């Protein structure tokens, strides 16, 4: 076990599917150097095939005996989707005119002036908003954002024949050692979430690093800080004051995805309870009905999901009745900055112990994540907006 564990809670009830997280991650890490096809953070519409395609059917993880299960390495073209490019540089020169050459006919040139460089067949958000069920009686969908789970028992790590995957001692972030990785890709087969990717340029595996360089310097991960829906909490699991600890340990309303894979993930989800009621065959409302089937949620989040949903509903009802609910207060998250409880002082100490140069503090707004053993540091409050 690492000394401390960073974790993330994602509230699926607040996720609007805007993909600001995906894009933020893309510009922070994966728009270059052989990572172009990778989405360290993706948001898939559930139900759907997801990203990579049908990842839940591709194996990996551990069986009940603790042995690694077989896994399949997804193919770029058909499972991830090739990051198609466009003819931007020739767009201005594209002849848009059709047979009549006036530009006014019913049809212009057959080829679109701006077109992708290949026939697109799959991509990271291919089944966006499609959902399942019969329209309008019981169709449904919700958004499922996914990053590396930075598992406590990472099966990628276990699968690596080179011992080239490690879990950081100070915060449990799982990293591929880019020095030692030989690109065998057992980790990809071994990860049941398919959140490790092969970098064809480097011939090494790469994955979400939980933005540890940002975290060390006091800035939350890009996907979390930049989330317009305010769905993500980041902090140390041992920070008892923190939302992450409280949602996971105290209220038990945040649950890991597919814990049956046996890797003990450290990304937790508040399950979706906020779907509209269903309609019967005559178009009448079925009162108290739920569009999202309970068995689907159980498959994703385990049996605990029923308790979590009951707790969430009860607290929501209490809030409606009395105006009070500490749990609802947590989920509402009044101050965006409070959703992130980082600890630059702790990383300073770690660096010092390792004899490494000090880690600069980039941002002083997100530093509440001290554990009892970390000495508090002086953090100057940012001044009020004087006007």
């Amino acid at each position, binding site marked *: 076990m690492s000394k401390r564990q960073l974790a993330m809670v994602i509230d699926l009830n*607040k996720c*609007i599917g805007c*993909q*600001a997280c995906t*894009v933020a991650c*893309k*510009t922070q890490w994966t728009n270059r150097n*052989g990572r172009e096809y990778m989405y360290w953070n993706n948001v898939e519409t559930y139900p759907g095939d997801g990203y990579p395609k049908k990842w839940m059917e591709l194996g990996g993880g551990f069986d009940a005996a603790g*042995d690694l299960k*077989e*896994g399949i*390495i997804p193919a*770029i*073209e*058909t499972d991830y989707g090739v*990051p198609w*490019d*466009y003819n931007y540089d020739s*767009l201005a020169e594209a*002849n*848009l005119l059709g047979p009549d050459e006036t*530009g*006014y006919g019913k*049809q212009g040139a*057959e080829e*679109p*002036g*701006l*077109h992708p460089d290949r026939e697109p*067949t799959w*991509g*990271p958000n291919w089944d966006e908003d*499609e959902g399942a069920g019969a329209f*309008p009686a019981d*169709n449904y969908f919700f958004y499922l954002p996914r990053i590396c789970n930075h598992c406590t028992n990472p099966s990628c*790590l*276990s*699968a690596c024949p080179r*011992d080239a995957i490690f879990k950081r*001692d100070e915060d449990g972030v799982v*990293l591929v*050692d880019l*020095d030692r990785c030989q690109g065998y*890709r057992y980790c990809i087969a071994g990860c049941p979430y398919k959140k490790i990717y092969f970098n*064809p*340029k480097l011939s090494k595996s790469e994955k979400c690093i939980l933005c540890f*360089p940002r975290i060390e310097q006091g800035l939350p991960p890009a996907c979390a*800080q930049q989330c*317009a829906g*305010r769905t993500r909490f980041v902090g140390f699991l041992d920070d008892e004051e923190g939302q992450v600890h409280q949602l996971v340990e105290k209220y038990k309303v945040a649950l890991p995805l597919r814990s049956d894979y046996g890797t003990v993930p450290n990304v937790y989800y508040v399950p*979706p309870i906020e779907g*509209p009621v269903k309609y019967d065959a*005559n178009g*009448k409302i079925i009162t108290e009905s739920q569009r999202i089937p309970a068995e689907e949620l159980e498959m994703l989040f385990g049996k605990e999901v029923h308790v979590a949903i009951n707790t969430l509903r009860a607290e929501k009802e209490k*809030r409606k009745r009395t105006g009070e609910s500490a749990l609802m207060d947590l989920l509402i*998250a009044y*101050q*965006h900055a409070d959703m992130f409880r980082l600890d630059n002082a702790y990383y300073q100490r770690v660096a010092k112990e390792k004899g490494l140069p000090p880690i600069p503090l980039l941002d002083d707004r997100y530093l509440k994540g001290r554990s009892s053993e970390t000495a508090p540091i002086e953090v100057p409050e940012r001044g009020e*907006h004087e*006007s």
Partner: protein
Amino acid sequence: MANERRRDFLKFSGVTAAVVASQGTLFAKRDVMQIESDTRAYPNANYTETLYRNEFGLTRGTVEDTGYAYHCSHCQGNCAWEAWSHDGMVTRENQSARYPSVDAKIPDPNPRGCNKGAQYSQMMHEKERLLYPMQRAGKRGEGKWKRISWEKAATEVAQKFFDVMTDPQRGPGRLMVRSGTGTTGSRGAASSRLSALLGSNTIYPSSSSGDIFSGAVVAYGDGKVGCTYDFLYQANTVIFWGANPSVSHMPDAHYIWEGKYNGAKVIVITPEFNASAKSADLWIPIKPGTDAILAASVIYEILAEKLYKPEFMKRFTDLPFLVIKETKKLLRRSDLEGMPEDEDQEHFSEQFYALNRRTGRLILMPGTEGSEQKSLRLDELGIDPELEGEWPITLHDKREVVVMTVFEMLKRNIKAYAPEETQKLTGVHPDTVRRLVKDIALPKVVSITAGSALSKYFNGLMSIWNIASICGLTGRLGPYGGLNTENEFHFSGLDVLSGFSGKYKPRVSSGFVGEFVFGDGMKTFDNYFTDEDTKRAQNGMGKREYMEIIEAMLEQGKKGQANAESAEGSVAKPWWQPDVCLAVSDSELSSKGSGYREAFFQKITYFACIDDRLSDTAAYADLLLPLASDYEVWGLGAPSGVHRFVGLTKPISNLKPVGETKDEWRIMALIAKKLEEIARKPENRDKAKVKDEKRFAEPGFHDLTQVYQEFSNMDKASEAAQEPYLGRGKLAAEAALEHCKQYQPWTIEKMEQAGGFLQLNETAGKSSPLYAGRPYNTFENMLYKSERFETLSGRQTFYVDHDLYIKLGAQTNRGMERIGLRDPRHYPFVLVTPYARWSVHSDYKTSKTLLRLQRAVPSMQINKLIAEKMKIEDGSRVRVFNALGEFFVMAKVSSSCPPDTLVMEEGWEPYMFWYNRGPGEVIPSSLNLLEMADGWGHLRFGPLWDGNRYVYDNAVAIEKA
């Protein structure tokens, strides 16, 4: 080389798609734990960690070099972003996330921002950027261009301007300078300023994009009503009618879902199941275009169950006003006392009666447009108006008539819309209607957001007017909620940028009428719509009569003639046919079909486009001028009403210029300079004073030899008046900060310190105070201070006795059907194009970062069962067609799509489709008479009282391509 290698890998990976790590267990390293232990940390961590730390350092760059930006392409977002940079190049953007909280019990606004803003850095250097001025060197759309210098390009534009302005046959009215959805705020003001200075023709972009809330103007005298989104957090019921805020209002949508945790009930009424519906308590899948009818049924139920609030209605609405039963005209003071000779002073025709219960006599109601009493207070005047009943009276001309209240008229109009009667049309079960009515009428705070989707049907005015009336009957104003369209704050002093203190004014064309005329809309209407369609949508008025009325109205509006001759302000929708057109970040042609383009280019001789990229519109231009964009300029955002902040753009330090791009102010100043140079040539001097009507040019002329001086405020008069110098983006931002009252006391330095934004002060509230510590909602001043509404009656309007309204039976609320062809056998689908998640209109549509998160090419949702029946496979190509035309699109088979509807995001550039033709090919054109009506009370042409393009009101068929 790198690409080569990647391709090799791809091949390899494709072949080995099913590599099975069957020996996985052999390599299982459960004993690897030893290197995780406290004592023996992974020995080689530093190598990888240093790599990633350095990489992050490069993207973050030097903190001091950080720029600020909003991405405000006609987006209400106006979000504050940091632009990170390294060595003069923007690396990425990150929300500033430093907005202050309004109230500790309400979530703060942070971080704001969205997927589109989060990737602008990636588009900034994309190869589609226009880098140099380019002149057309082939046919329009042929893709042949010649690079020219700015000097030459600006001179060409200026010469065209000079020629059209000084030609006695053409003049300023034939010049059009239009600013589209891609440029707003202090930047967009540059083209407005040039347009005003030259008296040129311009239009309101929100009308041509179908975003005018005309029904709200009818009701409240203002289409931009409602709240800042934090208000929704505290409401009891929040309804989104024809709206999908999780897609259209990403930065602020969190207030809705946090509001649900806080106890709110959320209801979404849209045909399709979307990102907001999925999280609602109740989603009502209404049939497309029947919103006016469902709303009429809601009114029916409110009346039937007596869930209305009589005391509120008496005071804040015109429901107690009296109407002459036979003529359906409001009873005016002039009816009882005759028209006074000095009506200009007396305003008898703008004073109205109610029947006072306390006295049993007629009483002139205070607060009306013509009344001397400006307050809505009734008690102190001893007035308790009757809401129900009819009475005989004798008019001034001795006629015996029966009068009845507006409320009685409303009841009569609504009688036909019992939920049982409308179910077949709307698809909504009567039980659902009743449940909706209870959720609207009973709770304390109820907010109903009417989305722009409603305005995209022919009957959109009535839909929104009906929803407003629902709010009026149930007593919803100010803190109790009510109609939410898109709130707009009030600003004074911004005229310093775009105006000349009234000295010069642009010719403002009606957006929807202008486009109808430019695109030969009448021809299309005549070819496409049948007498039956016209009658169905207009309560029996046939096609011939409709067309005659429209033609007469268009004639009246031509060159704004009728308005010029009118003594009482606007009476018709004005339009001018341009001959020379300069468009700034405008997707004028992108949303239309090829028929429109043909008509447009047959009527104009010169079309120049200023844009940062090659839009489909620009592809057909004569001249392209490259525009600097978000991270390259100084600017202040367009003030939005959904929150109280205004964004700043400030370029990063040492910015490496992108080609030869210039900002809007420098371009307009350069054109003005060249125009002045041309005018000062000896051979031009005698025609350089261009005569114009006084309403557009106070001096009676535009002096083109002074045009640059005046544009930049360097002329003598402006120097004397100490007007701020203009002509560069930063000057404009500084001038706005200095002169706009609502921006005080902010400066650029303060905005930077705060994190790239300013907070509006309390004076920004239009009809409520903008309290520093409270969310905003309109009309508190009416509710608490009895201030009058800016309407004819001074109240919320339920009755419009404009002749056309009476003729259409629409003098008060009722159901109205859409006009789209009803031919389910041949054209069974309605194509709806809601606001896009992936673009703001056509802005950002071509981003590969965003396209990779879609289907790469335009795609359209088709209901799963329909697709199965038609054997249309997901991802296959589909032909969408009707009598007007066709386009091809990728099928996206979906359970969220209604069986009778096709759902496709709006804003695609036609050049992204096969055959370079988009959905504009199948969209018919029409004008609604209720929106065309003008010259009545508060219904007078202006930025609010314009009309819409009804792009959803179509009928199409599909087939496998």
